[in-house]
């Protein structure tokens, strides 16, 4: 899998350097070639069909996809293309109609063979999820939002978890607001907290659903850079879906999703403009933002 990544160019230098060395050397960071090649999640012929009163709707048409350790996978597609459905399959949030999602829960298991609570547990240990609309609990301070995650999984003692939460907030550069409520900080800052929360239990994988969708371009850039840093410095694996084609070149691997089918990226018709070609995210209006 490493090969695939290296065939892509990397706009950010450091990681590019790493990748050139990738197949035969060891990066200065914590990652080894071996972990890079390790398959974390595999989708085998995943189909999802929704039946509605107006008829059946095929959201995913037999998707095959492998997610390997250490990659920054981008899935680009218009709204309605099945991006969120794909993510729901990966996170085990939704049931698939056919196919298998294999995850590593001690051993390789099909995620939908697990009970809901088992999935929760696996998700808590292995996945950090980031949403377009942040989904912070409004009644808890930033640091509490992060410690809640640790509290529920029980991996850290209460004292240790606060300390860790502060470290994470420092990592996402928002430590000074630690004891504020989410409503008091900007959207970009909330997304940073959401990322810190996703990191709380130190999961190897982060899954992000349009994480920059409700942010202005400058803030979105910062968030994206943060993701890049997480891949490089923390060795995280990130799967991100987005509508923003301009980001396509910045992932370590980019796939496109069109009408429920996943394929290689440059498949979109020529863009008229970097901005305009972009389909809006499903929940784009600020007035739809969930509090």
């Amino acid at each position: 899998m490493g090969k695939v990544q290296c065939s892509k160019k990397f706009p950010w230098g450091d990681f590019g350097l790493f990748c050139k060395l990738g197949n035969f050397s060891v990066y200065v960071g914590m990652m080894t070639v071996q972990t890079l090649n390790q398959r974390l999640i595999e989708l085998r012929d995943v189909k999802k069909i929704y039946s509605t009163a107006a008829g059946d709707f095929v959201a995913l048409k037999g998707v095959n996809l492998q997610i390997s350790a250490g990659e920054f996978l981008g899935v680009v597609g218009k709204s309605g293309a099945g991006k969120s459905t794909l993510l729901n399959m990966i996170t085990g949030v939704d049931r698939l109609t056919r196919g298998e999602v294999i995850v590593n829960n001690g051993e390789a298991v099909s995620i939908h063979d697990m009970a809901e609570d088992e999935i929760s547990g696996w998700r808590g240990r292995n996945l950090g999820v980031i949403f377009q609309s942040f989904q912070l609990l409004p009644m808890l301070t930033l640091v509490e939002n992060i410690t809640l995650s640790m509290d529920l999984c029980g991996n850290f003692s209460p004292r240790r978890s606060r300390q860790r939460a502060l470290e994470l907030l420092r990592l996402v550069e928002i430590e000074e607001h630690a004891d504020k409520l989410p409503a008091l900080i900007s959207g970009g800052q909330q997304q940073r907290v959401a990322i810190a929360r996703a990191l709380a239990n130190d999961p190897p994988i982060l899954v992000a659903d349009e994480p920059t969708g409700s942010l202005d371009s400058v803030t979105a850039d910062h968030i994206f850079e943060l993701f890049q840093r997480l891949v490089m410095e923390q060795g995280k694996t990130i799967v991100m879906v987005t509508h923003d084609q301009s980001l396509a070149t910045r992932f370590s691997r980019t796939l496109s999703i069109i009408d429920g089918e996943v394929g290689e990226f440059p498949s979109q018709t020529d863009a008229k403009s970097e901005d305009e070609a972009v389909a809006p995210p499903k929940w784009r209006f600020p007035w739809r933002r969930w509090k």
Partner: protein
Amino acid sequence: MKPRWRKIFHDLIDNKARTLLVVFSIAVGVFSIGVIAGSYQYISNDMSASYAMNRPANVELRTINFDDSVLSSIRNRRNVADAEARRVFNMRVRTPGSDRWTTLDMVAFESFEDNSINLLAPVAGKAIPAKREVLLEKSALRDLVVDVGGSLEFELPDGSTKIMPVVGFVQDTAAGAGDFLASPSGYITLDTLPYLAQPKLYNRMFVTVAGDGDDPSYIREVGAAVKDSMEKSDVIVLRSRIAETHRHPLADIVNAVLGILLALGILIVFLSSSLISNTLSALLNQHLRHIGVIKLIGGQRRQVFLMYFALIMAFGVLALLIAVPFGGIGAYQLSLFIADKLDFTLLGYRLLPLPFFIQIAVGLLVPLVSGLAPVVAGSRVTVLRALSGDIADDGKPASRADGKRLSWFDWIQVKATRVLAVRGLHVPRPFVISLRNTFRRKSRLALTLFTLTMGGAIFIAVFNVRVTLHDYIGRIENYFRADVTLDFDQAYRIQEIERVLKKVDGVTQVEGWQFMGGELMDTNGNVVENIALLAPPSNSELVQPILVDGRWLRSDDVRKMTVSEGLRKSFPGLRAGDFVNMRVNGRDEIWQIVGIFKFVDQEGMIGYAPFEYVSKINRQANRAFSYRIVTERHDRPYQDAKAEELDKYMRDRGFKVRIAQAGSASLDTAVESLDILVTFLLIMAILTAIVGAMGLTGTMGMNVLERTREIGITRAIGADDSAVMRTVIAEGVVIGLISFGLAVILSIPFTYLLSMIVSVAIFQTPISVVFTYLGYAIWLALVLTLSTVASIVPARNAARMTIREVLAYE
């Protein structure tokens, strides 16, 4: 605090309005339970306790005169705990200068200091009168206008008068007990007797038994022994009466009240649990997204369950903190009200353990039980559903939502509108929205309707029961059809009285009645019941009894009588044609009961026997003590005026008038306690109506909260404030009207049930039920008002929201 508990803590304190709504809906239930359980406890406990504290006599004997030696011999008897003797006689009395004479039962105490039976409770002024001073029982104030320190004019048998000061008011819980026609009492010392031309001798014996004072047969045994002993001392016992120590004379009425309390208590538990479960499931719906986030970041079902379990417990505890104290106060106030009406005193405000624990159980268990389903559902909800925002089943257009089908109910609604439209009947669309909104949350609607319908049905039923009782009272009037009752101290010839009275303007008919007392005995010869036999002429039209069995009097009846149904309490299964042992004027006789009629038997039994026979055994043929007079007009003021006029008229002519009063005056005392019941029922009805209205307000609030997006849409397409409010209010009113329809239906069995509880407690058999439009009309007006008011607050909130806020709500 762990973060998860901090979340719950903030859930509790951040959205205060919502927390208040939930806490309040629990508190209403707990409060009602507290009031009901508390009053139950207060009344059932304090009534008998306070009655027993006054040491009611177990045996009361009316005798000819006797002195201290007889008294002390009785006191020394085995099985007699205590004995007290008094002299009781009646006098006419008035406030000086007034024309209105009232009859008082004057009671002379052997010693006020040593009073140990039928204790007097001081109310105002002195508790012990000196010589030539008088204490008044507080019920005397109904007829006499006098203050402590004021004076009363007493009329002696020879026509002269004496004036004595009133030095205090007392309450005598035993006064009047067992005597339906008893007069209010005045209390004096023995030393005062000569002043009133009375001998210093006793004619009443009061005895408390040593041993079980609540065992009627034992008391009867002791009573018989005391009586024998007195008669051996040549003291003839005219009448005897026994009573249990802890049994208040009005216990039957109170039992009816308590029965209703119990039924309502159970009902309110149901009502408040439906209210609570409504509120909690709405709350959890709002929390679904949080649950989704929690699960997504690794929360397990058990953790989610525990968090919300704790939240519900916290609501319960908060509700208890509010409801328990208020419930206690409410219970005490309600009991106080009833105690005052029924003439007993409470032992004081205190924490009652049983209601306290019931309240805690209800406050914690009911939310738990009713919240369990939503909490379990919430903890089970999949992350996807929780996050998708597709929470309300009426939410979004089903673009991707899982298999939505049209329910048959929706289909019918659409079809119905269409059928109307085809006929050219178009319903305005804003109203169509209200109508269809009404049925969108069907389980919520069902719970709301349940609460509101119950409240309404009870409310309507209470009015029906009230009218039923009043109707019954009206029929009791048939026993008191005379306009004026005139009693004399001695028997006069009927023709003479008739001749004199007929000269008075407005008098159309005069009837002479006699009386006799009897003691009914069981097969062992023990006196079971005293009965007052009224003896009207057998063809009298002034008594029109409600017969439940047998026939009315005949002129040739010998040792035959009709008795009130209440006698079945002492003689279960009594039927017309049965024979009973009765002691009359000291002789044991066998009488046949030829008819049984309905009456209010709360103050002693009555029966009727024909004048023809009674005058014979009283050896007063063609004479009578008591006269019933019919006048031209039958309204109460006229009757009162006529009674006063006749009193003076006869007195002026040298007749010894004992009392003259309007014929229906005795009815007033007879039915007074029924009014207490009705008032009490009304309080209960209002309580249930409030719970129902609370439920409706909560429902409308939740509905509006869930439909903010749609309200935003209507605003976006041109609905102004009043249109938005109309839509919401119309929905509330539709719910109100549906509940009214259901309540109308449900009120019928409720009316039967309630009047059954009441009538069986007071009378022995159910009374015939009467319906009134009044309850329906008032409830209709009330439910319309309530549903409008209940929707106004949510509607105003809905109208106030700007569209941006509304659309941002998602």
